[in-house]
């Protein structure tokens, strides 16, 4: 099979580490009065404390999810590639459904952007892991 660019297998753990690290980071930030600039758009300049905090927490989580989603499996063969593409297709469908629904029903474009950052990656990961789980289950059922 042609090699495709994916992160090495161990990167999956790094990715989950980043996603988990995002939780205490945002809790500490919020405890110190840092609020999401999307809730209160800064009027002065970029790279203020709040803006940097937002960049750190959002990027850490988005980067973590991105790395988890695009890490190689232990054995990356053509069926895994097929499942990967299929999950990506579903993630795009769901993302656009959510995007269109929120554009119609929610008058808050800033949060739609934030939503758009997570939805495709999270849905992709759930769909992909679920498909792999089903493959493994069918294997153990047959022995």
């Amino acid at each position, binding site marked *: 099979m042609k090699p495709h660019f994916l992160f090495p297998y161990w990167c999956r753990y790094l990715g989950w580490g980043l996603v988990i690290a995002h939780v205490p980071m945002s809790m500490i930030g919020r405890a110190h009065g840092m609020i999401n600039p999307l809730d209160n758009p800064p009027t002065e300049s970029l790279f203020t404390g709040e803006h940097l905090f937002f960049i750190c927490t959002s990027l850490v989580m988005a980067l973590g999810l991105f790395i988890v989603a695009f890490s190689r499996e232990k054995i990356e063969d053509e069926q*895994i590639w097929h499942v990967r593409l299929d999950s990506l297709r579903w993630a795009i469908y769901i993302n656009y459904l959510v995007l269109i629904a929120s554009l119609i029903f929610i008058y808050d474009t800033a949060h739609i952007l934030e939503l758009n950052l997570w939805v495709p990656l999270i849905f992709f990961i759930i769909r992909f892991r679920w498909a792999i789980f089903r493959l493994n289950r069918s294997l153990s059922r047959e022995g």
Partner: protein
Amino acid sequence: MKNNIRVERAIKDITQGDLAEKVGVSRQTINTIESNKYVPSTVLALKIARVFGKPLEDIFMLEDRD
């Protein structure tokens, strides 16, 4: 498309894991091909046929609905 990989494996006395290793895929992939849930690429089908030393069409057959 159906196949008789399971029969060929029994004749050659190799497990799904052995075949998977020989053609460079996971055991899950061989399992889903055997149970007709996944149609392999031409390259993989040719590799499997080569392991059994038979022409491709002795291992994989088209069905009426294909």
